[in-house]
């Protein structure tokens, strides 16, 4: 018997124009948590997709219990004991928890010659499995009624019910609260004690060091190495991932806020549970951070200002002039831009090219004779942004969906900068982005502020808000509960305002 439950040796995979994986190794021991780390685009997801049979690798081999094997598709992977909880969950919302867990392998019974689904057994089994993942839910509950973290537990329950020996968790905590993360870690510990090998993908250093036994680091599709987690520190991981020493987490911000340019007064949503009576102002060249817990309605407020959501009252003024904003186009025409939070849902157009994606908000600038688009001007826009922001793409014609998250985000930043806006609303600009790309995005933000652009940045990472903002606006349950000067901000005084619920 091999000491490894699963081994991937010398995996090579190329896509048109990019080598995604080059001689990558991964060795998983039973009962251990193996963290897989690397920047976005390093090839972690591609490697996992090879293991799970979604992609076929060009070269290399997979061994299970020391025996060479091939994995043809996800259902084959499941049969061989490999289960995966995807970053973006894909449950069937209108069906029950039990039906989601046993999808494709419903327990059956025979009535005479006819085979039918054994619902009784399915719901009993599901209840047992749910207990194993500490979830006290009726298996008859519709999955659509669950929260994101509960759906995730259902996904894990699905993996547990398949008696998997290898479980891949792809960024499982990106949308969880601290409490939910703790619950997840307890499940992971349980699975460990049952001898399951866990592959854990995350960008959160503290989590990695807390939960993993071994760490494999990748960079640009290359295998960098595997270490015991207790030999590593956050700084060491980062420098290995980025390939250079990262001395500063945030760039110096030497922007000087000027006169007030943007004023919001008494802004109230049409939905009584959403934002209400919000007033604030924004100075030229200022970075205004927006803090709050999940559900504080920060995104809703900004989308309201941008014309994506409806308001019932309130005014927005730019340089003293009142703006009428009914849809995003009105906001854009008035020099406002907004990078939305949900990159896939409201940002990228997946099947379209990088060039199409980056130019869509500013097509008016590339017209000849007032009607005909000039492809050379659009190519030039791509080239300028590619150089300025280090966007990694095989070509400008590549569909944006095949780029990594960080590169997609840079394309979207480029889309907005092409319009040369005066006010930029950035909603979680670094979510799901690796350390290196984060720093690049911070630099872009700092530069923009220095150029005199006014920036509103929503973020759930307090460190980022404190490190970047001139001023922080804190929201709680739809209301603004206070402003803190960037210099005086601490995690404590922000959290105090963020939890100031109306009694």
């Amino acid at each position, binding site marked *: 018997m091999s000491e490894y439950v699963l081994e991937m040796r010398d995996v090579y995979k190329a896509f048109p124009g990019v080598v995604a994986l080059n001689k990558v190794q991964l060795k998983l021991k039973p009962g251990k948590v193996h963290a897989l780390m690397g920047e976005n685009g390093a090839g972690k997801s591609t490697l996992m997709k090879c293991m799970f049979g979604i992609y076929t690798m060009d070269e290399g081999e997979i061994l299970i219990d020391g025996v060479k094997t091939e994995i043809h598709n996800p259902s084959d992977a499941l049969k061989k004991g490999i289960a995966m909880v995807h970053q973006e969950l894909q449950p069937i919302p209108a069906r029950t928890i039990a039906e989601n867990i046993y999808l494709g392998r419903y327990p059956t019974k025979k009535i005479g010659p006819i085979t039918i689904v054994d619902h009784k057994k399915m719901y009993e089994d599901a209840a047992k499995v749910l207990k194993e993942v500490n979830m006290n839910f009726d298996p008859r509950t519709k999955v659509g009624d669950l929260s994101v973290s509960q759906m995730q537990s259902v996904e894990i329950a699905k993996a547990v019910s398949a008696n998997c020996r290898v479980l891949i968790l792809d960024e499982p905590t990106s949308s969880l609260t601290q409490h939910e993360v703790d619950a997840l870690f307890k499940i992971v510990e349980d699975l460990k004690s049952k001898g399951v090998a866990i592959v854990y993908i995350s960008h959160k250093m503290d989590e990695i060091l807390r939960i993993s036994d071994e760490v494999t680091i990748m960079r640009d599709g290359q295998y960098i190495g595997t270490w015991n987690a207790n030999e590593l520190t956050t700084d060491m991981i980062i420098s290995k991932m980025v390939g250079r020493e990262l001395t500063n987490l945030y760039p110096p911000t030497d922007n000087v806020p000027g006169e007030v340019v943007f004023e919001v007064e008494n802004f109230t949503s049409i939905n009584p549970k959403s934002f209400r009576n919000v007033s604030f102002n924004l100075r030229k060249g200022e970075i205004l951070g927006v803090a709050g817990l999940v559900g504080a309605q920060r995104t809703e407020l900004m989308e309201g200002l941008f014309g994506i959501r409806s308001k019932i009252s309130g005014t927005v003024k730019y340089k003293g002039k009142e703006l009428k904003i009914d849809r995003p*186009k009105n906001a854009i025409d008035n020099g406002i831009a907004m990078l*939305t939070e949900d990159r896939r849902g409201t940002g*990228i157009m997946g*099947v379209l090219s990088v060039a199409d994606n980056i130019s869509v908000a500013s097509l008016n600038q590339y017209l000849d004779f007032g009607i005909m688009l000039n492809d050379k001007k659009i190519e030039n826009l791509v080239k300028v942004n590619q150089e300025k922001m280090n966007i990694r793409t095989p070509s400008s014609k590549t569909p944006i969906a095949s780029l990594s998250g960080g590169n997609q985000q840079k394309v979207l930043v480029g889309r907005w900068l092409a319009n040369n806006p005066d006010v930029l609303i950035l909603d979680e600009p670094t979510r799901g982005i690796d350390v290196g790309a984060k720093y690049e995005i911070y630099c872009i933000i700092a530069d923009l502020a220095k150029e005199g652009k006014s920036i509103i940045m929503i973020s759930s990472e307090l460190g980022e808000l404190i490190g970047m903002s001139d001023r922080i606006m804190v929201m709680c349950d739809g209301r603004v509960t206070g402003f803190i000067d960037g210099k005086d901000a601490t995690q404590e005084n922000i959290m105090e305002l963020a939890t100031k619920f109306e009694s």
Partner: protein
Amino acid sequence: MKKVLNYLKSNPIVVMLVAVSLIVGLTTKNFFSWGTLSSLISNTTIRFIIALGVSGCLITKGTDLSAGRQVGLAACLSGILVQAADYSGRLYPKLPEMNMFVILIVVILVGILIGFVNGFIIAKFKIPPFITTLGTQTIIYGLCLILTDAQPIGGFQKIYTSLITGRIGSVKGFHLPYLFFVAIFFGLLFWFIYNKTRHGKYMYAIGGNEIAAEVSGVNTDKSIILIYVTAGIMYAIAGWLLAAKSGGASAGMGQGYELEAIAGCTIGGVSTTGGIGTVPGVLIGVLVFELLKIVLQFLGVNPYYNYIVQGLVIVVAVGLDIRKHIKKK
């Protein structure tokens, strides 16, 4: 050479098309003739114009089931208005004799109106295009029946039918029907719209991700209405041409054309999941269909079997195209 091979490899439909016509051409008489080419062009042009109209709807993840009936309405309306003054069976004897191009403008205006209604319902009330156009197509058919009293319409002005069936060159030797130039004109026009204008880019953006397009400042409602209006114009032109080509019109005209057009687009690579599709692709898709019909006719296949073969071609052609994308993974 390698480029050519690669192109053929990634376009099995084109290979199939060329191979089949070569075989038929070599085994039957008269297949390779100006006459065959001429009738192929005439048939293709009208279908191509309809397919161009539908393509915009498909690219934005919509569809237009009212296409065929809109063509029928335009044909009936053209037929009624273009009946010669000295024709005894005129449906509306009190109407003055009209110039055929004035009639074209009239049917285009009607097309704009119907397209606007479709687009407005889809964009503003968010009723799925499939349902919206299912409803409007039935209404339009009712209008056709009322307008024509379910009577066939004939006795057109000579100049109308002869212009459409007219051609350059000699009948026996080289000749091209006027419709050839109509097809070229609209092909180029749509290629320009789809690739070189903001409206075209917005159309692809909406198909790629409608919310993202709206957030990026695209007035998606306006774009969608414009797409269905454009489609309405194309159906009107197709109907006007169809009545002239047939030399008569009736309420049942154009039935099923929407499905043929959608099939043609899909064979030509227009993705029903949105955001993908090209004008040359649409042309190839329509050509596959029309060529197939002529080939079957030359082979002397019982016309009843045509439907079976056409159905198979839709599935096989789209299947081959999709395999190409799956393989890339």
